[in-house]
């Protein structure tokens, strides 16, 4: 699974805010220049990003395998028409370029996920989004990372127990109800315990944040995002 892996690559050492900015400007540039020439340049840039994070393109693509059938089917669906000539090559090519643009954007965001710890992301959110919304998002994201595996194993246990009692032979609606009810009950119970624990620890809207500082390494990356942003507008 695509998750954070500790390391000391160039991408690991960049500030998370820089990496977020790069992703946004990259997508903007890709949307503005969905031409063979524009995408060729962005492919080079993607290769550079992947190398900077020491992420192999194959493993990153594997993580997005669920998105790939739709991306592959897009050009076919787009090219097909009812009636002669049945297949319009131009439309298919246009959608194929759009699909390829999506693959590039996914690869670039894979570099972020692989090289940025949840803690860094949380700090970046809290330092970027002002006020209580920022605190809510930062705290919330950190806690979602904490509780996701717990709830996943809760649900897996529920489904195993159901299967052991032949519950998976029941109609679909009933099974969905059972799994969702069990999941919700566990989630609400955990939420109550979590709320109590947070109150006991004086949860504040203005906690002290871990430090985050732009370094000299960020300068070229920010210049690159500026170039991408300008290219998207011009």
């Amino acid at each position, binding site marked *: 699974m695509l998750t954070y892996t500790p390391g000391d690559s160039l991408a690991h050492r960049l500030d998370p805010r820089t990496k977020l900015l790069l992703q946004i400007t990259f997508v903007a540039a890709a949307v503005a220049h969905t031409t063979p020439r524009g995408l060729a340049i962005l492919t080079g840039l993607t290769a550079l990003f992947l190398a900077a994070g020491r992420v192999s393109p194959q493993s990153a693509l594997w993580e997005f395998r669920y998105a790939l059938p739709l991306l592959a089917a897009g050009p076919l669906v787009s090219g097909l028409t009812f009636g002669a000539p049945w297949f319009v090559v131009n439309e298919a090519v246009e959608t194929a370029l759009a699909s390829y643009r999506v693959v590039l954007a996914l690869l670039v965001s894979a570099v972020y996920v692989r090289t940025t710890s949840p803690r860094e992301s949380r700090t970046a959110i809290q330092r970027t989004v002002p006020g209580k919304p920022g605190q809510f998002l930062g705290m919330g994201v950190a806690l979602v990372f904490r509780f996701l595996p717990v709830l996943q194993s809760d649900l897996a246990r529920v489904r195993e127990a159901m299967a052991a009692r032949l519950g998976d032979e029941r109609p679909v609606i009933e099974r969905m109800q059972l799994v969702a009810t069990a999941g919700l009950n566990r989630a609400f119970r955990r939420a109550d315990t979590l709320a109590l624990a947070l109150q006991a620890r*004086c949860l504040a809207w203005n906690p002290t944040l871990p430090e985050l500082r732009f370094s000299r390494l960020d300068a070229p990356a920010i210049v690159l995002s500026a170039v991408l942003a300008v290219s998207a507008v011009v």
Partner: protein
Amino acid sequence: MATSNDSVELVGDEAVVNLARAVLFAALMGAFAFVSFPNPLSPAPITLQVLGVFLAGIMLGPVWGPAAMLLYLVAGAVGAPVFAGGASGLGVLLAEPTLGYLWSYPVAAAAVGLGVHGGSLGDYRDTSVPVLVAAMVVGTVIIYALGIAGLMAVLGLGFVEAFTAGAAVFLPAEAFKIAAAVGIVRSDAIAAT
């Protein structure tokens, strides 16, 4: 560590409980992405995510429901494996063809919450079945409208093409989810109010 001289501003009791519920709901949405059921009516499997959106609106209300969905999206954007198939990353929200569905979740949860609770947050178990179903139908329409718009924008498809690729095989399953949500809400199985 950074330093700060402001006095501590504690999060109020009610807000802490709501925050904890929003967090757990967002995590549950992520866990639901991994749960799929075979669909008797169409080849596409059913996941519980849209059910999660409905229940967020119904159980958390028109403010904290969308807040939970927003948390889910942000957590996925910075790397929690919560999107379909365990995907994550900002690229999914900014460039993937299915981005419309994801962005529609907070809107749909708000719509369902408003439909069920109106202005003030009451006990969702008092809501009548027609109101519940109507709210969820509106939610479904929002999800698919934005989802299809996303497909059209990202891949440059026409409406009919986008509908064929993105809605036709999934829509029948929504009826199951609405039925399941009504069953869950009307039963006494959920302990929390």
